[in-house]
């Protein structure tokens, strides 16, 4: 039976088998995840390009690892590799994609109510959106941060994990922020339901 290359390495140096196999599995999965994320971000990517991306991601990951120095903490080392590689690939991809597509994709990442069908409602929706963005900018710093992350499609749990704040704190800041926004939008005589009004329900549904 032919022995795998990893097994032959392990025979030469006594190392933790789990580390190596898990690392390889994690990075393989990471390459697939990056490919899928880029595909969902830019659906115009062709199947050939997707294959290329996966190969490029793998190559970049392994090259970065092979050049690395002593690994103090495997977990944070792998996350660093994951982040830097993804950012590199995204930078490269975004240079080849028209700005309109980038804008369209970025806009779709902000949660607003569904796109209205009639032209009048579309205009109204655009105005509401503009008012909303201005209103978000006017919020106090911590509320603004939470509201912006929530509008960027993050759930309460994700915001809490990202900022390292407690769930209650995040929920409280979000409710207060949304209430401020609703007041602002109402005062401008815009449609008050421009944003969904019950974040906790949606968060639970998601």
């Amino acid at each position, binding site marked *: 039976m032919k022995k795998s290359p*990893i097994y032959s390495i392990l025979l030469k140096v006594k190392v933790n088998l789990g580390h190596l196999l898990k690392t390889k599995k994690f990075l393989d999965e990471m390459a697939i995840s990056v490919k899928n994320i880029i595909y969902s971000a830019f659906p115009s990517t062709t199947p050939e390009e997707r294959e290329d991306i996966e190969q490029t991601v793998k190559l970049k990951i392994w090259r970065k690892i092979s*050049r690395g120095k*002593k690994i103090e903490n495997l977990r944070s080392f792998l996350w660093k590799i994951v982040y830097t590689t993804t950012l590199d690939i995204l930078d490269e991809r975004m240079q080849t994609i028209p700005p309109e597509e980038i804008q369209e994709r970025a806009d779709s990442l902000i949660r607003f109510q569904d796109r209205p069908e009639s032209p009048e409602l579309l205009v109204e929706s655009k105005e509401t959106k503009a008012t909303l963005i201005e209103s978000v900018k006017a919020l106090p710093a911590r509320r603004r941060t939470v509201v912006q992350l929530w509008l*960027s499609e993050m759930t309460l749990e994700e915001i809490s994990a990202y900022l390292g704040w407690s769930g209650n704190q995040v929920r409280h800041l979000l409710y207060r922020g949304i209430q401020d926004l609703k007041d602002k939008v109402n005062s401008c005589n815009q449609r008050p339901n421009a944003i969904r009004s019950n974040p906790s329900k949606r968060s639970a549904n998601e």
Partner: protein
Amino acid sequence: MQSDRIRRNEAQMNKKMNSCPSNETFEKAFFSSLTDEEQEAFIDHIFSCHKCRIKFEALESLGRQLRPKESDFSDEPLTNAETKAVHKMARQQIGEILGRKEPSVSFIYRYRTAWITAACFVVLIITGMLILNPFSQKSVFRDTVNNDFRLLEPKGILKSPPIEFQWTPYPNAESYIFKLVDENLRTVIRTSNPAEIQALKDDANKIFERGKYYFWSVEARSDDGIVLAVAREYFIIKTPAP
């Protein structure tokens, strides 16, 4: 005073928000290494910049997918052997992706002294060859000096003025340019001759003065007039004893 500081901070924040954060800042944001102020400025920028919003969303989404698996890895540092094994595995993976064997980094590092020594040695040899190259010396005379082409006579100290000049034949030479100059570098005779001998007329003896140096050269030329070889010689006619 306090309002000035707040205004300054706001100005700094605005400045930060206007330019896209570096990839390093993105990493710091996801490692929770940003200060509260930096984090706020970062999120503000993400919310207003299309490209950065996509990058942020990609990292967030990647984290969502991979975070459940990170518990597989401990925070304990790897041993040297484990680090080496990870590096070696990375090189093998590169080789598999590229379909060839990736050169071993340790091999290059291990013999780096030998590589440097070899490179210095090669440079020294090339430099030496350039300095000692006989072709580089020929350029001083702007023509070709060939050891196979020799002037036979006259040369050295003579008792009486010469009556003929002789040299060895040169392959493929169609003519020989004979030139005689005195010690003041004045051309005394210049002729073109198909043979390997130049005879002087009887009255030509009158041109020589005893005790003075004379230099003569012969150029072997092809039928195209190209100089194939050059040779030079000198002589002096001894002054008779009083």
